[in-house]
């Protein structure tokens, strides 16, 4: 079988080498404690009296997570191996470096591995006298039915959900409030994706799953976890309509409501295609008489070189709009 074409050195070194490159490229935004090479800290984020927002998860989703570490967004990120939760140690390292005496909010996608590792870190931090809370993101509406929202995966909606919580923390709100806003943001964020080709792990360089040419998988996860249905590849508008139907039906917004939109590349799907999708997303939102308050189009939460895209809609209210509009300055995401 042919190996995926990657520009890497040893497949086991990709995460550490990537981090070296990130640190070299963004010294004004990011730093790492000497003893904690897998904890990435915002240079201008953490400060005394501020709730520390600590995010993290497996690598291979860049710019998620490390690209969202910065003033106004996350204070630190713990970096795992490719598609693998970080162990408790870097999570603790990140939290210790970021906390400013007002508690730590952990936010990450709802995956069994991440929950176990972050929970272990939280227990150990508690022993150090550091208060922690956890809000799992569960925006992937394809990954479990509406009634089982808390079983869903966290995917690209992370960007908006982290952003809202990061703004709340940056505004100096107390831990209870930051946690409440994070939960509120997660509850109003809806994502669904479609995959057109597989990614592959750098260690094996073999496709993570088998998706024959001419087919697509609706609802595929960002680690190549199977979605809800596999079928013949359809035109962009038809795919967008299926996703938007699902999101709009669950979101149940009233005419005049405002939304934030993210059309996200899962990796190799280029901007040209994202904007084609976006043209339809925008038309559907207009038809539903919703007001688009903010739009992001690009690779925000990827699965290495997987082809495909996801659409995220956050159903804004005054509070979330304020949080989404709050400025942030990260190495890979800036606003305001």
């Amino acid at each position: 079988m042919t190996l995926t074409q990657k520009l890497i050195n040893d497949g086991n070194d990709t995460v550490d080498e990537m981090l070296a490159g990130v640190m070299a490229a963004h010294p004004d935004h990011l730093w790492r404690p000497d003893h904690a090479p897998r904890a990435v800290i915002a240079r201008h984020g953490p400060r005394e009296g501020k709730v520390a927002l600590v995010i993290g998860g497996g690598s291979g989703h860049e710019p998620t997570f490390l690209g969202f570490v910065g003033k106004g967004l996350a204070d630190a990120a713990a970096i795992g191996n490719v598609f693998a939760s970080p162990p408790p140690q870097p999570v603790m390292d990140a939290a210790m470096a970021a906390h400013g005496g007002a508690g730590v909010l952990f936010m990450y996608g709802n995956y069994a591995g991440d929950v176990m590792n972050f929970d272990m870190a939280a227990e150990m931090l508690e022993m150090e006298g550091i208060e922690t809370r956890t809000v799992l993101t569960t925006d992937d509406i394809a990954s479990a039915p509406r009634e089982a929202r808390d079983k869903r995966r966290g995917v690209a909606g992370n960007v908006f959900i982290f952003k809202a919580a990061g703004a709340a923390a940056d505004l100096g709100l107390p831990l209870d409030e930051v946690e409440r806003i994070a939960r509120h943001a997660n509850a109003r964020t809806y994502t669904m994706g479609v995959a057109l080709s597989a990614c592959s792990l750098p260690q094996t360089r073999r496709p993570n799953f088998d998706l024959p040419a001419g087919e697509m998988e609706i609802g595929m996860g960002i680690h190549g976890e199977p979605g809800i249905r596999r079928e013949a590849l359809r035109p962009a508008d038809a795919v967008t309509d299926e996703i938007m139907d699902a999101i709009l039906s669950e979101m149940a917004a009233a005419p005049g409501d405002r939304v934030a939109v993210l059309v996200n590349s899962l990796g190799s799907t280029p901007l040209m295609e994202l904007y084609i999708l976006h043209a339809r997303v925008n038309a559907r939102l207009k038809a539903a008489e919703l007001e688009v308050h903010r739009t992001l189009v690009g690779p925000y939460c990827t699965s290495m070189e997987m082809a495909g895209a996801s659409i995220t809609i956050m159903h804004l209210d005054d509070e979330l709009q304020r949080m989404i509009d709050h400025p942030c300055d990260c190495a890979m995401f800036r606003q305001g």
Partner: protein
Amino acid sequence: MAELTPQRLVASFAALAEKMDAERDTLCRLDGVIGDADHGIAMAQGMAAASGAAADLPEGASLQDVFNAAAKAFLNAVGASSGPLYATAFLRAGKAAGPHAAMPLAETPSLIAAMAEGIAARGKAEPGQKTMLDAWAPAAEAARRGDDLVAISAVAHAGAEATAEMIATLGRAARLGERSRGHRDPGAVSAAMIIAVMAESWSRPDGA
């Protein structure tokens, strides 16, 4: 009387590392079908780290020291789901073995039971949810029944095979529903392999 010594336990971890390395791609392929294709990498990396840390311990380390070092090294090398689960398993086995320099081989089934308890405690899975517990739980039951290592290993293997018929309700595969049926759980398959290596390694009276 044949005994499990710290040296012998270190050798067991070396055998585990070798086995996981050999099975890396098989386990990744299994995980690719219903998960994210990295289980073989996690197990190979974790056991290599565990084995290395165990081997690096100074002269005079106890059985518990070996298990503790392996736990910490596995966890830090891997994270993922396997990391906390196996780290907890090893810590529990270490507690069961205690700070001693030897344990009768005949008592080693209690280590398997301890590991299973650790995995259940950490993962909060129930048997039948299509996880590694479906290999570990029946193995632990057999151990508590007094079965020997060969029988325990057979039961673990059967448990792993049986996951093919289960619908996942936990872990990454849980979102698959019906589509998870027909495929064995990678964590259960690697669990059966681990138990087989331990059974083999702790069955030979000469400790070779």
